[in-house]
């Protein structure tokens, strides 16, 4: 069986998505362990220019197509090219970072190829003919070991879990000739998030506010986030109150985050919120209720009024940063 690993690369005018670089690192590791090559597939206009970056992160071959139907991204044309190429190249594993774009491709690709898929993967190993992945269930309340059989196996690693690894691959560029069908669902406009707004699921630090914020003014948290280079999140209570957009919600019915630092301000720590942030490396909680469940999950807790503590923390960190 071919031991190659194919990586579906996502990119924008800002370059290769961090989640794709992480996926390349994982692919390189799997390929090296089993004597295969890493095939990177950045589909769409501008993909070819990314070849040096992809090679510097482990890609042996870079397969590109600038067909006009591939830009902007639409699921069906991308799927058509990917299905054809995966059929031709027969990789053992296909990897794509679990971004929102991946959510558009994962289920369709699985159905098209009759291939098993694991989403939000935290670790992977190959075991004979099977791929063994660990992924969270029930919003992270439980971890499941999953055995996937079939070829290829589709893996969608959770962002911020696998490291970006600078490791050289051969980086040979090939242009794909297959014609691409027009999409039946196409993007008409992209509405960029406000400048400076960081993506929650990819941020290295997250500062979140809950019911204790007592209103829609999160400027205090935004200032702290500024010092920490963090994204700003919110609990379900804060979102349900209409204080923050639903896209900011961290929890089982919102986004799952796994940053290096998570600062929970005025969040009591409902089970469904804890599920969304339990993979954070360092957790800080600020809450005036000493019995709040969030303190059970926090590495560092401050019992106190967040409206007093947070500005002082911002000032103290700013001072230390110099």
């Amino acid at each position, binding site marked *: 069986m071919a031991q190659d690993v194919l990586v579906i690369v996502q990119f924008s005018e800002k370059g290769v998505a961090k989640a794709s670089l992480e996926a390349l690192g994982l692919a390189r590791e799997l390929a090296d362990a089993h004597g295969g090559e890493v095939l990177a597939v950045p589909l769409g206009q501008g993909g070819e220019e990314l070849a040096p970056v992809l090679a510097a992160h482990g890609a042996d071959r870079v397969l590109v197509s600038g067909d006009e139907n591939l830009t902007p991204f639409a699921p069906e044309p991308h799927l058509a090219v990917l299905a054809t190429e995966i059929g031709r190249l027969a990789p053992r594993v296909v990897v794509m970072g679990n971004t929102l774009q991946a959510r558009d491709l994962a289920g369709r690709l699985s159905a098209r190829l009759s291939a098993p898929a694991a989403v939000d993967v935290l670790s992977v190993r190959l075991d004979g003919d099977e791929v063994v992945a660990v992924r969270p269930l029930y919003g992270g309340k439980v971890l499941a070991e999953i055995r996937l059989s079939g070829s290829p196996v589709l893996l969608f690693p959770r962002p911020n879990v696998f490291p970006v690894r600078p490791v050289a691959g051969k980086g040979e560029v090939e242009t794909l000739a297959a014609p691409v069908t027009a999409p039946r669902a196409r993007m008409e406009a992209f509405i960029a998030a406000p400048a400076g707004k960081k993506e929650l699921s990819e941020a290295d630090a997250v500062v979140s506010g809950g019911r204790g914020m007592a209103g829609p003014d999160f400027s205090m948290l935004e200032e702290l986030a500024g010092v920490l280079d963090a994204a700003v999140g919110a609990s379900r209570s804060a979102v349900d109150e209409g204080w923050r957009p639903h896209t900011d919600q961290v929890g089982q019915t919102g986004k799952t985050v796994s940053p290096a630092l998570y600062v929970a301000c005025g969040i009591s720590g409902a089970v469904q919120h804890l599920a969304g942030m339990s993979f954070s490396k360092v957790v800080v909680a600020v809450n005036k209720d000493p019995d709040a469940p969030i303190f059970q999950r926090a590495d560092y807790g401050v*019992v106190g009024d967040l409206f007093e503590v947070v500005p002082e923390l911002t000032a103290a960190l700013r001072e230390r940063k110099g």
Partner: protein
Amino acid sequence: MDIIVLVKQVPDTEAAIRVSDDRAAIRTEGLKWVVNPYDEYAVEEALRIREALGGSVTVVCAGPARSVAAIRSALAMGADQGVLVSDPALEIADSLGVARALAAAIRGLSFDLVLAGQRAVDDDAGLVGPAVAELLDIPHVSLATKVEVQGSEILCEAAADGGAKSIRATLPALVTAQKGLNDPRFASMMGIMKAKKKPVEEKDLVALGLSAADVAPQSRVTGLSFPPERPPGRIIQGETARDKARELARVLVEEAKIL
């Protein structure tokens, strides 16, 4: 406008999850089951479209017999009829197997639009909706926060990496619902009474023209565990908020190596 809504019954998000002794499954006794929260947005959107344009709303659910409660909940909100796809072979099926069963059930129905939650909050995979679209050979829009029917097309707003996008798709299409799409209504007492009399058809794989082999899993859960416990945390001491904040800043920088 004939609309299909896919729903799934899942454990309540506030429920603590316990694992069976053999670690192969969760313990379901005493568990409170609810309609997957994202599916409620899908049901609500279907009802709003039917109210504006006429037509029907059919709820399709795959799951064990208890799942009929999820269908009844959607019927109580106002959906017209339900189909429960239930078969022992589905109990070990993976996302693709479930998608195949659902697609087969949908093929037997008239539809212009299929709505589903963007993911179920039990296995959190988000694979089934787009997989059903693929199997039905129709376009899909995932993570929709707005859906507008315009003749033979839909115009959606949807979450995207780094922002949001508007997407136009031809009908029939499948749309997965994201939080923010709408505020689902509560079922009225009248709605709950009426729901008891609405038709719910139960189908097994044979009735759908499938066999157990069609839904045989290629992925299977071989062990459940809990995330590692965090070592007990430390409550930062200090006289004033300022003292505590300064001590917290110190430990974050010096011990946790933040910044």
